[in-house]
């Protein structure tokens, strides 16, 4: 029978795609022969916009670079400006930054659970996960004023101190989360239909993972203990105690187990932060917070987001404006080099599953 070959677009308008991007698939029947990723639907020209702005003007738009998890962007921006300008942040501000980053990581992992379970049809998990994530967003709203785009971590510290009784509310939430995550184990992680769909699908080998520059849970799912918080510690992570979970199989199920274990580790870190929070100021005293003179120098800073290593390159030129800021998110290499490789030979119904497990987020690819 002729006409076996067909080319279809998986996205951008598709219920099974993680954001606004598309994958062009060449199929024979339902098996994929070739996959080409298309991005650019969310290109706003951030790097050009930031070149026109001073530090405080750029601070307001930097959090919009990555939509599901904005806080690593703010932390990176603040750390880069502080390195260039030679500022040293107070201990209380560093602990508050760690708390904000870990809460944001927890919220992003809940969003991942909703997406991954929706890709195989377990829609009830999505309803619960988004509702539990909303409880974390309530805490953010109390602390920073906004649910999603916080604009809280500023070069020099954080914008304002914790409200009365905030740490007690965080502890209550953590106790609730520890009990609640066991329910997700029963209905999602140990679910027989998830296991039968996810084991053996999307396998990545260890050597190719290191050579090609993959980051984050892709490396951890292959057995490599890769975590920026342990390899090149930033903020106060060298004073906190936590483990880096790894699995060896390298398939979708291994990455899911890694992410589930990371949620436990995030809760463990948050409990330590709540117990150890020091007193003091949250913003260093500067003559004015509106002007930063950046010398003619450059730097490279990175943090560990929920999806992998997030890095910024920042260069100044002696004036008040930022000369160049380049964003290197974890999804740039995952969406092109890795996805086009993994999808060859896969089935059409596994495309959404694999994309969710790699954690591909298009806004940070094309900025």
């Amino acid at each position, binding site marked *: 029978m002729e006409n076996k070959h067909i080319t279809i677009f998986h996205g951008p308008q598709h219920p099974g795609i993680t954001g606004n991007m598309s994958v062009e698939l060449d199929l024979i029947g339902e098996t994929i022969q070739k996959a080409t990723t298309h991005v650019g639907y969310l290109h706003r020209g951030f790097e050009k916009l930031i070149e026109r702005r001073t530090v405080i003007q750029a601070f307001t738009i930097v959090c919009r670079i990555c939509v599901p998890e904005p806080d690593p962007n703010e932390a990176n921006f603040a750390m880069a400006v502080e390195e260039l300008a030679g500022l040293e942040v107070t201990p209380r501000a560093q602990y508050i930054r760690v708390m904000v980053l870990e809460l944001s990581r927890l919220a992003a992992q809940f969003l991942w659970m909703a997406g991954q379970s929706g890709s195989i049809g377990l829609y009830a998990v999505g309803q619960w996960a988004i509702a539990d994530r909303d409880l974390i967003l309530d805490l953010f709203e109390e602390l920073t004023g906004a649910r999603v785009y916080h604009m809280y971590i500023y070069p020099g510290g954080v914008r304002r101190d914790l409200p009365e009784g905030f740490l007690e509310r965080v502890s209550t939430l953590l106790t609730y989360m520890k009990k609640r995550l066991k329910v997700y184990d029963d209905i999602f992680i140990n679910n027989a239909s998830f296991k039968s769909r996810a084991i053996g699908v999307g396998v990545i080998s260890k050597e190719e993972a*290191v050579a090609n520059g993959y980051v984050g849970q892709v490396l951890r799912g292959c057995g490599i203990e890769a975590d920026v918080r342990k390899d090149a510690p930033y903020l106060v992570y060298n004073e906190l105690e936590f483990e880096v979970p790894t699995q060896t199989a390298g398939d979708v199920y291994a990455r899911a187990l890694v992410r589930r274990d990371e949620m436990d580790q995030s809760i463990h870190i948050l409990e330590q932060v709540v117990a150890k929070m020091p007193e003091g100021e949250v913003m260093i005293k500067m003559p004015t917070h509106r002007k930063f003179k950046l010398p003619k120098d450059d730097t490279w800073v990175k943090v560990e987001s929920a999806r992998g290593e997030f890095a910024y390159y920042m260069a100044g030129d002696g004036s008040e404006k930022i*000369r160049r800021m380049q964003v290197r998110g974890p999804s740039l290499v995952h969406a092109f*080099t890795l996805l086009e490789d993994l999808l060859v030979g896969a089935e059409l119904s596994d495309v959404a599953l694999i994309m969710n497990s790699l954690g591909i987020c298009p806004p940070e690819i094309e900025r």
Partner: protein
Amino acid sequence: METMMFKQIKSHFATDDVEVKRNDLYKVGVRHERLFELIHMLRDEYDYKTLNAITCTDWIEEGHFALTYMLTTEDRKHTFMIQTMINREDAHIKSFSHEFKQAEIMERDLHEMYGIDFQGNKNLKELSLENWVHTPPLRREFDTLEFVNNNLTFREGRDDNIDTKVESKRLRALKKAEKEAAKKAKEAAAAETVKDEEVKDGK
């Protein structure tokens, strides 16, 4: 081990001193003809196996692009920034896509944004823009606000929209003038009463 590596780089490639930015970040500048040799040496002898990013900064005043390659060791504990300068006009450099698979997409991104030709990269198609015929956008001579004002229209604004800095200055000056006038009037009134009393007394 670091000092040995730095000495070898400085003597072999005739560079400046290797700059140590943090305890896990080093930077060196090298001429673009010797770039490949340096990266091969770091990859084969010193374990810098992963290419993390390629970035580019446009120094239009000095007439060159500064390309920076970030390499990381296999245990991810050290990063090396290798910077090289290429000409702004007719910018080209040999591609790394045969040795590092991820370099293909990074070079495609830079080609679209700056117009640099990476010779040997077979996939330099458009990435984020579609049918773009103007200057590559991240070059400094491309003015984004001028482009927007020429090609797109905004919604008509409110007619009574005023500049807040100008307006608050005007209001403050007004308040100050009123205070001065009130003070003067009070003084004049006090002087009047004193004069009246003097006249009364004198009478």
